[in-house]
């Protein structure tokens, strides 16, 4: 860490190699799009490495990088939610016919090789169940049970009260169990 702060390129490279998989995996499971996850993971590392001089050693480095990664994913999901067109059609439509005419048409989009990789990687029952959680539950469950962070670290990373993190994780686990039971029926 100190070497990277002092500008040693091999130390930068080592930091990227050490954290690229966990950071990419967190973002990928949040946004569920490989190419986008790679862009957001790159943004995360660029932000972190360019700000290394301002890094406070009393803060765990992994907490810092996961905080930035999670913010990147959540910001993207919020933007996407705002950009999403209603599938029911234009909100200004004055009749059912206008609603139907302005609704996006879902044609038969063929699956690209990247789509195939994504459906293989995120297509299992547990991955699909995680994908159904609301984003803030998803962050908490991934940081706790995949990355192994403590509740206190997660609260610090997500700027949430400790009690809220515990509640989110508890609810997320309940939802996951229900989704998995549904999938097995």
């Amino acid at each position, binding site marked *: 860490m100190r070497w990277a702060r002092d*500008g040693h390129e091999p130390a930068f490279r080592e930091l990227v190699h050490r954290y690229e998989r966990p950071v990419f995996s967190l973002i990928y499971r949040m946004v569920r799009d490989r190419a986008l996850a790679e862009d957001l993971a*790159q943004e995360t590392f660029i932000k972190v490495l360019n700000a290394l001089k301002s890094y406070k050693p009393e803060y765990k480095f992994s907490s810092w990088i996961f905080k930035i990664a999670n913010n990147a994913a959540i910001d993207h999901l919020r933007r996407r939610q705002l950009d999403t067109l209603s599938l029911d059609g234009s909100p200004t439509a004055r009749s059912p016919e206008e609603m139907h005419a302005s609704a996006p048409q879902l044609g038969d989009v063929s699956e690209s090789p990247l789509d195939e990789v994504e459906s293989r990687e995120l297509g299992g029952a*547990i991955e699909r169940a995680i994908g159904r959680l609301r984003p803030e539950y998803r962050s908490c469950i991934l940081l706790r049970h*995949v990355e192994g962070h403590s509740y206190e670290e997660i609260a610090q990373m997500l700027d949430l009260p400790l009690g809220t993190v515990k509640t989110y994780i*508890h609810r997320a686990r309940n939802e996951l*169990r229900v989704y998995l039971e549904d999938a097995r029926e």
Partner: protein
Amino acid sequence: MNERLQTHLTPEEVELWATGLLSAARTFHLTECAECLAVAERERKLLVELAQLQRFAPSADFAEKVLAQVRIQTPSGSHHG
């Protein structure tokens, strides 16, 4: 509410049990309470599934793409990257 019901494991205790960290005294409750045992078993199964999730790798040139866009200040003070 009887005393046994009041001592049901909390979600945090269930998590501790599933990871082998719950105290012996609280673990004993599971030998007496079928309800908690069923919850704990379901929870353990889920936690095992989550812990076994793989870490995905980005593309092979990920580090190069990142380093090409980072301002690396060398110890002498000059920038590259």
